[in-house]
């Protein structure tokens, strides 16, 4: 069924809402933003044509409120909703509510989303589609767990069946650990997902996280746009992603794309999806899960394949089928994305919400900055601490890596602590440059003595700080009242007494 989409409500916030708005603007589609009270001045609101407040800061009273979002769509006359990622993006009830309200949900239909939302069911569906899964068993009773582990072969991994994002996964290295560990795993699963069902899987090590970007037409046809490698993770949170994977050759890519397409087609899947695999040491790949949304790391695929995945999602949602440009897309060069989080790597990666006072963004060939902030703003305590993604494309992997490093050198996010310096450290690491890593490597690097050592010259930093404290008033920066006063800065420590004392100089 063909239908024209004229106005889209973006049921999200932050960088992804801004990124989706850009494509909508380019397509001439009206943009409706929703925002919580905490986001009244957020960039995703400022780039929209219309906006509606959907409640207080906590996500379950705003961005997770199906009713409020449907109501906002009704009130603004939107004809479609783009869910972004996170929040309601993989909630089948939301898909159902959109359908009931006569709104186009830009994503897959309810059934495949529901089926894939549970790891145990997803395993069965994948197996039915002929896709190899990690050797394992689903829904095993407590008494049978130790035996299941022995059958699969230790070490094994216990995973909440209803889980996602790596939360609640527990490694078990021998049968005698099983009882205690499985009880803990069930407790965590119950608390986090209100469902204590576990699945038991072989722990494949060393393994790399490789995922295939797929795109379906909802009628049983689908295309694959190669892989992304996301092995560099911390606590199952992706940190650096790239396309293509440096360890996937044409033969592996073909096999993985075939697996991913088989699953996608079997589900009559519509729109963008990602099939995640573990790639084992012998080049064998095991299905992990399928994410039924646009992925955080989609820009690396866009840059390498020369496509706009959001535009393609809209084309499919309009009933136009898979765009020919996606079918024709061929990879070129290499792209690397680094996720910038408001967190403190030197303090155990604790989140660091707070005000951002000034932002300097890099420019230049092959650089893309997808951010929730382009100038001063606030990183709130209520949402995910990812504030931006910096992405570089280059003709080859090392060009992309060097470009990304150059871009980080031109980046400043002042007033808040971020993982920027940590990302630079990882990108500079020879093991990263040589692509020698697996999914548990990054945690190991972080634990190394001296990993956070600072190469910058202390004298330089001290001098810079002293200059900044001593700076006289200048024309103030963007968008505020500009003073041309050449008077001494009243805040300058060099012009007043108090905690500052003038010492005698050498020459005296």
């Amino acid at each position: 069924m063909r239908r024209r989409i004229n106005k889209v409500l973006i049921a999200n916030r932050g960088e992804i809402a801004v990124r989706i708005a850009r494509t909508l603007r380019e397509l001439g589609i009206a943009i409706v933003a929703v925002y919580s009270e905490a986001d009244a001045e957020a960039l995703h609101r400022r780039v929209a044509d219309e906006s509606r407040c959907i409640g207080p800061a906590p996500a379950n009273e705003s961005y997770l409120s199906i009713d409020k979002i449907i109501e906002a769509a009704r009130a603004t006359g939107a004809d479609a909703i783009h869910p972004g990622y996170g929040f309601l993006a993989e909630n089948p009830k939301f898909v159902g509510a959109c359908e009931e309200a006569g709104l186009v949900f830009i994503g897959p239909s309810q059934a495949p989303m529901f089926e894939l939302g549970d790891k145990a069911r997803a395993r069965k569906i994948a197996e039915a589609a002929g896709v190899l899964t990690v050797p394992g068993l689903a829904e095993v009773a407590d008494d049978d767990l130790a035996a299941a582990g022995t059958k699969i072969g230790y070490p094994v991994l216990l995973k909440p069946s209803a889980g996602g994002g790596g939360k609640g996964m527990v490694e078990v290295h021998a049968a005698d650990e099983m009882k205690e560990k499985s009880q803990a795993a069930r407790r965590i699963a119950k608390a986090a997902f209100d469902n204590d069902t576990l699945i038991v899987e072989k722990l494949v090590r060393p393994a790399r996280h490789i995922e295939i970007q797929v795109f379906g037409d909802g009628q049983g046809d689908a295309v694959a746009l190669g892989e992304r490698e996301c092995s560099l993770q911390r606590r199952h949170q992706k940190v650096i992603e790239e396309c293509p994977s440096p360890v996937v050759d044409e033969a592996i890519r073909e096999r993985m794309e075939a697996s991913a397409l088989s699953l996608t087609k079997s589900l009559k899947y519509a729109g963008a999806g990602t099939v995640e695999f573990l790639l084992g040491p012998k080049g064998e790949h095991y299905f992990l899960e399928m994410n039924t949304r646009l992925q955080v790391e989609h820009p690396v695929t866009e840059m390498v394949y020369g496509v706009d995945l959001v535009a393609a999602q809209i084309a499919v949602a309009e009933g136009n089928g898979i765009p020919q440009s996606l079918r024709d897309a061929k990879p070129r060069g290499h792209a690397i994305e680094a996720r910038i989080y408001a967190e403190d790597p030197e303090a155990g990666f604790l989140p660091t919400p707070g005000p951002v006072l000034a932002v300097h963004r890099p420019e230049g060939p092959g650089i893309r900055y997808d951010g929730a902030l382009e100038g001063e703003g606030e990183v709130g305590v209520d949402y995910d601490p990812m504030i931006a993604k910096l992405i570089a494309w280059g003709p080859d992997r090392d060009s992309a890596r060097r470009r990304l490093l150059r871009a980080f050198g031109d980046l400043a996010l002042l007033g808040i602590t971020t993982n920027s310096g940590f990302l630079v450290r990882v990108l500079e690491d020879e093991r990263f440059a040589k692509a020698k890593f697996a999914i548990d490597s990054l945690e190991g690097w972080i634990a190394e003595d001296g990993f956070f050592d600072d190469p910058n010259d202390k004298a330089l930093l001290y001098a810079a700080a002293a200059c900044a404290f001593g700076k006289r008033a200048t024309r103030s920066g963007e968008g505020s009242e500009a003073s041309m006063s050449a008077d001494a800065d009243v805040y300058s420590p060099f012009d007043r007494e108090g905690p500052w004392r003038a010492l005698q100089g050498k020459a005296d």
Partner: protein
Amino acid sequence: MSKKTLRLARVKSGIHDDLPTELRFESLVADHALTVEWNDLEQSLEKLVDSAGELLLRKDGRSTRVFWHRLGSSVYLATGGRHYRFDRVEASAVEAAVNDASHADIKAPMTGKIVKVAVSVGDTLKEGDTVLIVEAMKMEHELKAPFDAVVETLDGEEGAQVDLGQILARLARVQTD
């Protein structure tokens, strides 16, 4: 030119992590020369550009671009993708930081909410015992006793909002040796 003194503390995780550095600093506008002295070191640099939000400093023949922003007594810097915060501190703070290690302040490591207070005033704790748990952005962080100690003061209850660096408890060391 007379030198100026500036007491700087590098800030990490919202907390002054080192002893403040007493910096003697001299700037000769004429030739852009700068000298910084701290402890027994003296280093020379040149300030080539000092424009809004950006410095260009030369040391050992090489220029380095440093982005900066100042808010009150804090200066934020970024160079080569690495970021720093320095606070200007009062003279008294230099001495205060050199106090004994007989006490420890348990400070909020982030802006967030207290989700658990695990101790009461007067409790005796072993090194590593949890004092409080603070949550922000869906992540919990346990604050632990850095040494064997008695809880001297406790400020904040479960559910309370706390600011980065806020002192939530003060522990007195128990000598075990």
